[in-house]
């Protein structure tokens, strides 16, 4: 039976690096998706994601299980990403050369969900509309849409109440709908 996150954390706190590697294996993809969504830049996102795991490793002894491990990890990653986003001067969603070997080749026959012209225009408008959101509003949209996290978990990650999560989501969706009304 697979060990729980908390069991792995305890083993890590006892000095077992292999346990931390297992945690990285479980969550690195999820963290990367969220951070790429926040930053729009894969290279920066990988740096931020690795930094998040590094900081989690450094602070693992102080983690007492008050929240779930993934909530705690997401919190670290989102905070670094939001700080990074505030400093970001590059164009959003500009795809650079990927780090060698880090990205597995995409299935070439996978359908691009934005393949037709109408959808490509929607994608461009979506990108522009998302980038007009503040980092905090972008974060709630991504955590809800991509990860399907509950308001409670999102609040724990962002350090705010469920009510705040609800109102930020409502505001962000309203803004996106206003900008994309012709396409939706």
């Amino acid at each position, binding site marked *: 039976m697979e060990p729980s996150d908390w069991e792995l954390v305890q083993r890590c706190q006892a000095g077992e690096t292999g346990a931390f590697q297992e945690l990285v294996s479980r969550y690195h993809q999820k963290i990367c998706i969220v951070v790429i969504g926040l930053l729009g830049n894969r290279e920066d996102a990988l740096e931020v994601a690795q930094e998040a795991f590094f900081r989690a490793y450094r602070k693992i002894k102080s983690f007492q299980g008050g929240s779930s491990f993934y909530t705690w990890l997401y919190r670290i990653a989102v905070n670094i990403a939001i700080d990074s986003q505030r400093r970001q001067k590059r164009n959003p969603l500009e795809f650079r050369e990927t780090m060698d070997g880090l990205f597995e080749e995409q299935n070439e026959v996978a359908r*691009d969900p934005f393949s037709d012209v109408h959808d490509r225009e929607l994608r461009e408008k979506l990108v522009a509309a998302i980038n007009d959101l503040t980092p905090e509003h972008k974060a709630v949209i991504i955590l809800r849409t991509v990860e399907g996290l509950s308001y409670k978990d999102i609040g724990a990650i962002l350090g705010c109440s469920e009510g705040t999560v609800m109102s930020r989501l409502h505001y962000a969706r309203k803004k996106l709908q206003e900008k994309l009304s012709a396409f939706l």
Partner: protein
Amino acid sequence: MRNCEDIAESLGVWLDGELSLADAEVIRLHLEGCAQCDGKRRQLEKLHSSLKSLFEANSPRVALEPFWRGVQERIAERRTWRQGITEWVRSALAGPAGAWAVPAAIVIVLAILSVDSFRKLATQRNNFAAVESIDAHGRNVALWREDETKTTVIWLYHNQEGENESSEENTETRPSF
């Protein structure tokens, strides 16, 4: 929660599954009978699926091995607390130039009021210690100050005669400076 305006405000929460069962049922029933609100529901669902597709399309699979190697490298580097502070300071420094006005004013005012403290601070750069008195009780003693590290060293030479020390300790007590 019966009119269309209320329903529209709660659609997002309803789609997220965060409403109570009772409230969710009220909305479901309303949508069955209201084409306008149902249209808004479809819009919101399309927004949700477009966003999800966009984020997932931009996120290829990340290979674990090289990612883990990157994390290990950071752990191995054991970034020092100084680097942590430097990064924090760097992030604090980033920002529009205008935002510096107030903090800069605080520092300037304090500097003007505390000139004397700053001057005294400048004089305390060395680690010199002054030996005011020394009694080695018949032993030879050397005293020297080293410029590079500003260290004061008092060295006691081991006297062979009349000492009551363990025979296991040898006489290699002279530093070879």
